[in-house]
């Protein structure tokens, strides 16, 4: 095999490989909105129940991803769930913003939804989001529904009293 033909083939091979990599990087995948290169600030939120929320779940406001869930721990004093939210530094939120744990679709993944308030002050690093709404746990919901049904219509029991 001639040296130049060999070099040509190898060049073609490497170019094809790099083209495949570029295709995978740009057409197939995308950088997530909050990647390591973005700077973030973290705020805290406490929930009574976080349901199935996991670290790295998205934090959305008006449906737009603005950050990711950082750490999740149990607060030892009052047994609430402590959730750290890493929010993109590009976005500032008022201090009276509320956080809710929501589910995308009926059975989809859980995420944290932020609803901005009207305060002039904005949340800073390590601030606490005071207004939170817990995750809706489907089993509780069904249990409640059954309980209400039972309360509305008393069970038609056989009545020996009559």
């Amino acid at each position, binding site marked *: 095999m001639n040296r130049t033909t*060999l070099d040509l083939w*190898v060049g073609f*091979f490497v170019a094809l*490989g790099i083209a*495949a990599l570029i*295709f*995978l990087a740009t057409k*197939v995948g*995308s950088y997530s909105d909050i990647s390591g290169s973005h700077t973030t600030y973290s705020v805290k939120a406490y929930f009574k129940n976080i349901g199935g929320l996991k670290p790295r779940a998205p934090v959305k406001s008006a449906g737009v991803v603005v950050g990711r869930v950082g750490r999740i721990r149990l607060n030892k004093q009052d047994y609430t769930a402590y959730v750290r939210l890493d929010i993109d530094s590009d976005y500032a939120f008022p201090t009276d913003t509320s956080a809710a744990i929501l589910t995308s679709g009926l059975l989809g993944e859980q995420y944290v939804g932020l609803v901005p308030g009207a305060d002039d002050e904005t949340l800073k690093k390590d601030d606490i989001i005071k207004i939170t709404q817990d995750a809706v746990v489907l089993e509780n919901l069904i249990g409640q529904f059954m309980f209400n049904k039972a309360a509305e219509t008393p069970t038609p029991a056989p009545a020996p009293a009559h």
Partner: protein
Amino acid sequence: MNVLLKILRTMGAATVNGVWRLGFAARFFLAVLRYSGQSFLRLPLTIRELFFSGVLSLLIILVSGLFVGLVLGLQGYDILQRFGSSDALGIMVALSLLRELGPVIAAILFASRAGSAITAEIGLMKTTEQLEAMDMMAVNPLARVVAPRFWGGVISMPLLAAMFSAMGIFGGWLIGVVVIGVDDGAFWSQMRAAVRFEHDVLNGIIKSFVFGVTVSWIAVFEGYDCHPTAEGVSRAITRTVVYSALAILALDFVLTSFMFRGI
């Protein structure tokens, strides 16, 4: 009693032998790394090996990638449409290829196509005393023969795996969009939204790099260590393919358990 002792002794001998070989292989690996500098100074040697392990594996990788993609498209559509989410076909095809099938199947194909060829070549050079002759000419065979083949394999592997995945996604698109009629826009946009570069694509590349090092290492070691007879070479080739496949699958499990833990 005697039988029991004999079994124990056989087990012990096998263990000692295995550990000894592993240690020898590790020392060989370090020696190859040590002499790699010399072979990098002479790039044409490595480029030549890139041709043999990379370019010559191109056809089998592209064709297999296409077929795996076609099958993924058919099976994926069949399962997803039961849940009314056939739009997610792109996600399924892309993620299974990028994370698992691309690196793993490409590496196993690479081991059987290029790995076995490397073992055979080095083994035959040993059998015909070519390595010894080189050593007697004051040319280190590790630097001149082994290191270029090792690096040729290490460089080709991630490129081949990327081509395999790209070809597979094309195959999945061909079946899903062109043949079955999944919406073209949904296919690509869902895929792009779900596949994260730094998580899925990059981890796949890391996997294929690790597999490339492993397969190339096994291939050059088995060739260099083979018994210098025709039978010895053929056994070494078999060992290259078998050990490579086992190592790839076991390593894949280890890497996956570190990379993708549902977070």
